[in-house]
């Protein structure tokens, strides 16, 4: 009985009302209450363990401040290190992710709709995505003249698969009714892809994009392990080489925070783009 009552509550959610300070407080609390709990538990556990490999979060945060937030207020406290090291890497990450997204969506939709063409390249795709990026670096170092190009290639090559696969799948499984309708109204190829297949596949594409966004952070780090002179991965490398355990944790924490922020922005954008979808499947 209880399950049924809950199911009703889930389906018949009252219309969200905006504004009201209480609501905002509630929104924040319901989203973040678990975070302080986990951090506190972590702090306690780390203090109890007292191992140099597992510094408590308080120590990590201090190290983070020292590394990246010891600059002048005029620069938002960003240190030289932060500006010189973090920004270029993030720039490469975004460039790589955007490029991969673009190529992934375009190629995915094209291959999703062109079955025969897909048959030719599919084994290659599944082959390529199973090769570990560290092993690919050999190839990319050979193909490109600058480290930046190599790094970009590693990022693109590493993150493109979720977008590509999900786009292919999405484009493949568009509701037949939509396609038939487009066909009888004589929509051209371009129009059909752009106005029917793309929106119909959008939910899957977004799942892929969201996956690849955090993957991009990971690949950014991996790409900076070879031949780099800046970036979060480089910082991680230096911290590891220097047996600087708080430093290693600081980069991990930074990556996590970045990941959270990126994802939050992404979800915001997705909500806008897929509003029809969200509303269409929520309201019954």
């Amino acid at each position: 009985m209880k399950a049924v009552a809950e199911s009703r509550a889930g389906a018949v959610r009252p219309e969200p009302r905006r504004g009201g300070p209480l609501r905002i407080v509630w929104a924040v609390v319901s989203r973040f209450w678990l975070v302080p709990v986990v951090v506190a538990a972590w702090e306690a556990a780390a203090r109890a363990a007292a191992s140099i490999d597992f510094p408590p979060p308080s120590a990590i945060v201090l190290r983070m401040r020292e590394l990246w937030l010891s600059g002048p207020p005029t620069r938002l406290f960003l240190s030289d290190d932060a500006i010189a090291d973090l920004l270029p890497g993030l720039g490469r990450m975004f460039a790589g992710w955007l490029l991969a997204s673009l190529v992934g969506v375009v190629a995915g939709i094209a291959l999703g709709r062109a079955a025969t063409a897909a048959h030719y390249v599919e084994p290659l795709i599944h082959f390529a995505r199973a090769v570990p990026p560290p092993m690919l670096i050999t190839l990319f170092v050979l193909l490109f003249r600058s480290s930046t190009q190599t790094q970009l290639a590693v990022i693109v090559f590493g993150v493109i698969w979720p977008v590509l696969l999900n786009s292919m799948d999405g484009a493949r499984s568009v509701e037949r009714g939509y396609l038939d309708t487009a066909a009888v109204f004589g929509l051209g190829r371009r129009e059909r892809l752009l106005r029917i297949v793309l929106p119909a596949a959008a939910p899957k594409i977004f799942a892929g994009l969201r996956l690849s966004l955090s993957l991009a952070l990971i690949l950014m780090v991996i790409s900076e392990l070879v031949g780099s002179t800046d970036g979060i991965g480089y910082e991680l490398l230096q911290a590891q080489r220097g047996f600087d355990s708080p430093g290693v944790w600081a980069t991990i924490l930074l990556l996590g925070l970045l990941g959270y922020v990126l994802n939050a922005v992404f979800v915001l954008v997705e909500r806008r783009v897929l509003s029809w979808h969200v509303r269409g499947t929520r309201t019954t």
Partner: protein
Amino acid sequence: MTGARLVRGAVGVAGFLAVAELAVRSGYLDERLLPPPTVVVREAVLLVADPEFTSGLVGTVSRWLTGLALAIAIAVPAGVLLGTVAWAERATRPLLEFLRPIPSVALIPLAILLIPDDFLMKISVIVYASLWPILINTMYGLREVDPLAKDSLRSFGFGRLAVLCRVSLPSTAPFIVTGVRLSAGIALILAISAELLAGGAEGLGVFVIRAGSGNRTDLVIAAALWAGTAGVLSNTALVAAERRLFRWHHVRSGAVT
């Protein structure tokens, strides 16, 4: 997987190899740095006779499959939970989104410290990384379920769990399988990367460390060839399973098969 499809796939692979061969032979790519495909393929075939390699391959593959199976076992229920229980999703999202972008290179040293057993350590790393595609695809898939289909069952008085099992899950299944296909690739990558970063007694990654240290790029690439082949095979198996299980999905959506 029809005959024509197999042939086309083979043609695609052959075409790629031919282009690569040409690129190397014509000097566009440096032959001294990158052995041509013919050489690599020959090495790869010869590797079958190398017991060190084959036992490594078996080890890697077994860790890969174990890790993938565990990832599915964890991620599908978790995805269902987060996809259906809004407050749980809201509360855990900051943590999950925090954990997702932590790279294996940072994770593996910590994993080694925490998990003394080499096998378990590698499995954990594989599971950690390959969890996400299944989790996210499950969550997105649940959102896609036609609300009317759910209402249909609810109207017959079925509870939340029954609706989940009998409507939401079947209709999400194709979405989940796409996630599994993605995860299979990632799990394989991690199975090898864990060995590359942590070493070990055997494995494809260990083989690569050895080949690299001995300046045997041909062997490194031959090993990569095997990794890729494993990826293609697993994908083929998953696609075949998908086709059998979700015929309704393919036919109904007019999927180009």
